Every structure is written in C-alpha cells, then in structure tokens.
C-alpha cells in the first residue's frame, strides 16, 4: 500500500448510486457498492460479464460523475511495455546527440540528459500515474493480452507506481480509480485477481432493464419499454449462442420507436428480431419460439 492519503470521493453507497443515475448510468446495488468500496480501499475494479452489458460504460460514467479525465488503454494480443507504459523517444535522442557532436564531448552530462523527462513518451498507464488532475484509468479487455504481459500491470495495480530503470520509481501523484474489463475469454492470473475487487455485471433484471430503456431511448412510451424488456427476458431464457445484450435491447427499442410502433405484437417482434440477435441459428430459434 502506498503512503498517499486521498480524500474519499464518495459519501456512502446510495449517494454513489444517485450520482451515477444523474449521469444516466443505472447502477444496481452491487455496482454502486463496489465502486464505493474501490474508492475507500484504493483498489482497482475488475469488471467481468457478457459483452454489451455496460462494462466500459461504467468507467466512462464514473469519470463523468467525478469530473475526471478518462485515460483508456485498449488491450490487444501482443501489446507490450512500449505501448502500455512508456517509451524513449529515440529519434529525439539521436537528434540530441547529433546536435552535441560539434562541441566538446562530455559523455556523462549527455547521458544524464538523454534519459531525462524530455525524451520520455508516456503511454496510458504512466500518464495515469503522473496526472496531477483527477483521472480514471480504464484498461479495456484485459483478457486479450497474454498471461506474461499481465505481469506488467501488477506493479501499477497494487502500488500505483511505475519503475523506469533510468529514472527510478515514479509514484502516483494521486490514486486514480482504475477499471479493468474482461469478457472472460480466458482465466486471468491469480496475481491479478487478488489485487482487484471483482464485479460481475450480468444482464439486468426486468425492472432495471426497463428503466434503462426509458432513460436511454428518447420518446419511448412506458408501455412499449415494458414490453421490450419482457420480450428480451423471454428470449434470454432460450439457449442461444449469443443472448441479446443491453446495447442490442436499446437498438431494438430505438428501431421500434422509429417505426412508430406503440405496442408490439408477435409479427412485428419477429420481423425485427435480426436487430436483437446476430446469429442466423439464434434468429431461427427465437422465431420458432415466438410463433408457438
């Protein structure tokens, strides 16, 4: 743990929930508690769950809520230190050497100069650590990086510091809120999990989904939102390759509004199924299911 003391950002759990709602993110009790706790314990949050349930959106909304800058690191296979942490600007270093070459050669001086802040290019992780203003760090789709690369994150996650061999250890000016998201395509390492609070975001309950539809889709009637949420729940109960996510529900609701539908019947639902489901087999299955 670091010695840096930070003021708690939130008063209590209901406040977090209310504030998130003010920025149009409808958190349930679980989400609000974990966000609150992350701030109090100074721990990163590992958010896991099916695609399209608002994992990334949570980080964005929290950033908006506390008026912080969002720094995002999108992970992919093959990401390395140079892309995630920092890199030396070697072109500029070369220029520096060349500029010096006419004058006296004082290697020691030059050496110290070459590895100074001026030539350091910060990447998202280092940037988040060095930021003076409040930031929220989002490490997106962490499960895409290799197990070995995960280790890169451990220092920053547990101690909020980055070691640069030439410069020494850079400690955080203030402890940022950190979100890691994972689609659970592979098991994350124990070391990583241990350092984080774990939050599983699943498909929302009926009531919450309805409220989400009501807030996010302009001009939808209460009745239609209710129907949308119920039909989506019904479809999720089928065994599908990919269940409709919240974002797909929203797309579907928007489409229905655009089509000027006030109340869905089975026919209309079937005709617009392809917005909700992405696999042909799934569509066929749901189609059949809604027919009987």
């Amino acid at each position, binding site marked *: 743990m670091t010695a840096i003391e930070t003021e708690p950002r939130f008063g209590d759990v209901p406040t977090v929930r209310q504030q998130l709602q003010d920025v149009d993110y409808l958190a349930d*009790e679980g989400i609000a508690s974990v966000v609150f706790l992350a701030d109090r314990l100074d721990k990163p949050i590992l958010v896991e769950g099916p695609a399209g349930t608002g994992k990334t959106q949570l980080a964005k909304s929290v950033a908006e809520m506390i008026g912080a800058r969002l720094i995002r690191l999108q992970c992919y296979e093959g990401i390395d230190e140079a892309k995630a942490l920092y890199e030396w600007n070697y072109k500029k270093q070369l220029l520096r050497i060349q500029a010096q070459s006419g004058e006296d050669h004082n290697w020691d001086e030059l050496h110290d100069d070459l590895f100074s802040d001026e030539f350091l290019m910060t990447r998202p992780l280092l940037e988040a650590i060095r930021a003076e203003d409040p930031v929220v760090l989002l490490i997106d789709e962490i499960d895409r990086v290799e197990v070995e690369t995960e280790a890169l994150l451990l220092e920053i996650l547990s101690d909020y510091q980055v070691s640069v061999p030439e410069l020494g250890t850079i400690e955080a000016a203030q402890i940022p809120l950190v979100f890691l998201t994972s689609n659970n*395509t592979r098991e994350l390492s*124990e070391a990583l999990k241990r350092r984080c*609070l*774990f939050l599983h975001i699943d498909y929302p309950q009926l009531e919450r989904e309805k409220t989400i539809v009501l807030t996010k889709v302009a001009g939808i009637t209460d009745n239609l939102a209710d129907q949308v949420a*119920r*039909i989506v729940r019904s479809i999720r109960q089928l065994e599908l390759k990919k269940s409709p996510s919240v974002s797909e529900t929203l797309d579907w609701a928007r489409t229905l509004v655009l089509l000027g539908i006030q109340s869905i019947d*089975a026919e209309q639902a079937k005709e617009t199924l392809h917005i909700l489901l992405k696999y042909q087999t799934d569509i066929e*299955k749901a189609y059949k299911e809604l027919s009987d």
Partner: protein
Amino acid sequence: MLDLLSGFIVELRRAGLPVSLTENLDAMAAVTHIPIEDRAAFKYALAATLVKNDSHWRAFETVFEVYFSHRGPQYNVTDENMSDGDLEQWLQEQMEQMQQQGDGSGGGDMSPEELAEMLYRAMMQGDDALMRAMARSAVSKYAGMEPGRPVGGTYYLYRTLRNLDLEGMLDRLMEEAQQDAPEGLTDLEQRLEREEFQHRIDELKKEIEAEIRRRLVADRGVEAMAKTLRKPLPEDVDFMHASRDEMAAIRKAIQPLTRKLAARLARKRKHKRRGPLDFRATVRASLSYGGVPAEPKFRYPRPNKPELIVVADISGSVAAFARFTLHLVYALQAQFSKVRSFVFIDGIDEVTHLFQGEEDITRAVHRVNTEADVIWVDGHSDYGHAFQVFWDNWGTEINPKSTVLFLGDARNNYHATNAWILKEAGKKARNVFWLNPEPRSYWDTGDSVIGDYGAHCDGVFECRNLRQLETFVDHLA
C-alpha cells in the same frame, strides 16, 4: 464481528472457494467501510473482495445466507423478536387495507383459505414486502418445524409448498390476467404474462427456502447448517449424481470452459514454434564447422492434431457424462484433424453426421439422444456386442493417426466383454483411452469390467466432473 467473518471465510474455503490471505484482509478492511445493516451492500462488498469467479457466486450466496441470515433491517417486518401472532395481525391489517371494504373477520387465526387468497393477491400485484411476509407466515403455518428434529430443510420445503399449491396458483393467475385484459391476451402477451408470474412464484419459493434456512440456523447453529448446505462448485459436481439444478449449472459452465480451453490450446500451438532436434540435419550442418555441432537443427514442428474417434455409452446413468464429453469434443473440433463419434447402448450407431453442418451443439447432442439407433435387444448396456459391431463395420478405419476414446462405466450386465477388440484397436491406433465417470473405488465391483478393458488401453482416467474432463482434453489435444 471479526470472529463471525473469519468463520465465514473458513466456511467459504471448505466449500472450495480459493480465498487467499490478501483477500481475507481486504474483506476485513471492506466491512469497516460498509455498515452491516445495509445488508445488500454488505453482501456485495464481501463478494467483491472474496469471490473472483462468477460461477462461485451461488456457493458464496448460500454461505452468506447461513452466516448473516437474520441480520439487517430489510427483515424488520419479519424480525426475530416479532412473534407469529404479531405477524398475523400485520397481515390481517394489510389484507383489510387491500380489500378496502373488508368484512373485518377480526383477530384470531387466519384460515388457510384466507392465507391462500392473500398470497394470490400478493402475486398478482408483485408486492415484495407482502410476499416476504407471506412466505414467513406460510412456513410457520405449514412446515411444522420443531426444534431439534433431525430432518433436512427439503422436507420442510416440500411440506410448505404442498400446502400452498403453487401450480394451481399459476393457472389461476393466468386466468385472471386473461379476464382483466379488455379484448383478451394475444399469444405473445400470454407468454410474457406467464413468464412474469412464473418469475414471481420462483421468487416466493426462494423466499420460503430462505425463511426455512433462517429458522434452521437459529435452531441448529451456524456451523452445522453450513455443513449440511455445503454444495460443490459447478466444476466439481459429479456427473452421475447431479440434480437438475446442478445439471443446468454444469451446462452453463461448459460454454465458457470450452471457449477458454480452445483459446489456450490455440495459443499453445502458436507458441511452440520449434520441433524436436533433427539429428541428421545437425550432423550435416556440423561439417561446415569442422565437425563441431555448433548449429543445432530442429525438425519442422508438427502439431499434434489427432484424428479422434469417440465411442460413447449413452445408457441411463452415464448419458449425462457422454453428452458433456461430446459437447466438449465438438466445441474443440478445430483442434483435431477429424472427429468421428459413435454412441451405443447394446447396439451402436454413428452420429458424426448429426454434428456436421449443425452449428448448435446443444441441439446436435439432443438429436443424438432421439435419433441414434442404439437399441439392439433390450436396451441394457452390452459393451461386448456394441464393440463387436463397431469393429466389424468401422474397425478398418482406425489408422496410426487416430486416437480412440471410449466413454462409459464399463458396467456390462455380465455379458461377454470382447476385450480383444480393444487390444486389436490399440495395435492399429496411436492411442486408446478410456474415460470412466465412476469413482475409482467402484471400479471392478459388481458387473464393472473396466479392468479387462483397461488392460488394453494406453490410459484409463477417472472423469467424474468438469475439472477432470477439462484436464484430460487439455492433455489430449
């Protein structure tokens, strides 16, 4: 508090959850920030620090219910210090409020009819607080719980539910909904209504279950209850003795598992770029260094992509196991050069075609059960005959590249074993493996002839749960 929490964590570990010391400390730190009275937030706080895998959530919830069951303001209505009489009174008031014109039967016991009527109203309106109170009232009325009586919670649950007649309730609710709608419900609306009511009924059942658990904890103490309620994690559930709920949990767990396994295998392939040392090439290269093998040469890597032949027993008790294995194998099809599958009971049939051109594995597995022609005489397992037919019809297709996988408990009903077929198959195939879903201690007891077959296999593996199955498939590909 500290004692309670450490007891809780010990119990979590006993249930199989990996809770490390750091996580333990985190949980302790977390609870200082969140008051125990806010029960939901408290629960999520503990979960966030202790549970790092979604499939462990259920196990966590059960333990949590036991340890922190009768704490929290949410249960004010049904508080421990409120006697049953008070509760009835409260319900009565509620009922009068609801009926408005209530004839005010006033005081006394509520008759079962009244209770049922109340419950029905609560369901119709989806009133949570009332439903909770109803659950409590129903338990005290029907379960007939006596302190110290050594019966399981399921017995009480059964008694309560039998008296409530929830099946009839669903029909009645549907009827009422039908009548309420001005011009009747369309099919779609009917379906949605039914699901909504079903959902509420399930909620009620859960509530009743929780109520019974609360009372049992109060009666028997936390430790004893935690022990009886301890449930294995989905990956540790025995295939052969899984209940329906557990089966559903396994089915849910198998999907992400196959995804992870496929990703891991693909990665393994990609990273192993070097084959074994090529001795001839190394010696030849050494000539240019005066005979010093300075530059080792390696063989071109040949990924081990076996041709898989799966022969599965799908009779009664082992059917579930065969289904999961087929599911897993086909989900990993890309990792094998070819997969052929056969299923048998006493007759044998090839089912490869059911999986080909079928994107939906669940449906394919279902079709295996309904379409495969596996009954020869009486539908009791006859490994000997099944293997005989297999050998006569398809034996020629086993080649040095193929791995033959037998799935079954080898309970042969005292028929002839025909173990020589495995021996012959072993000569032609690259590997012959046998997976047995029975615990090792049961092998070769009764009519189990696994020993006879196992003698001719390259390996016989006990494969009782998802974890073991995963390890085996990982090793195979």
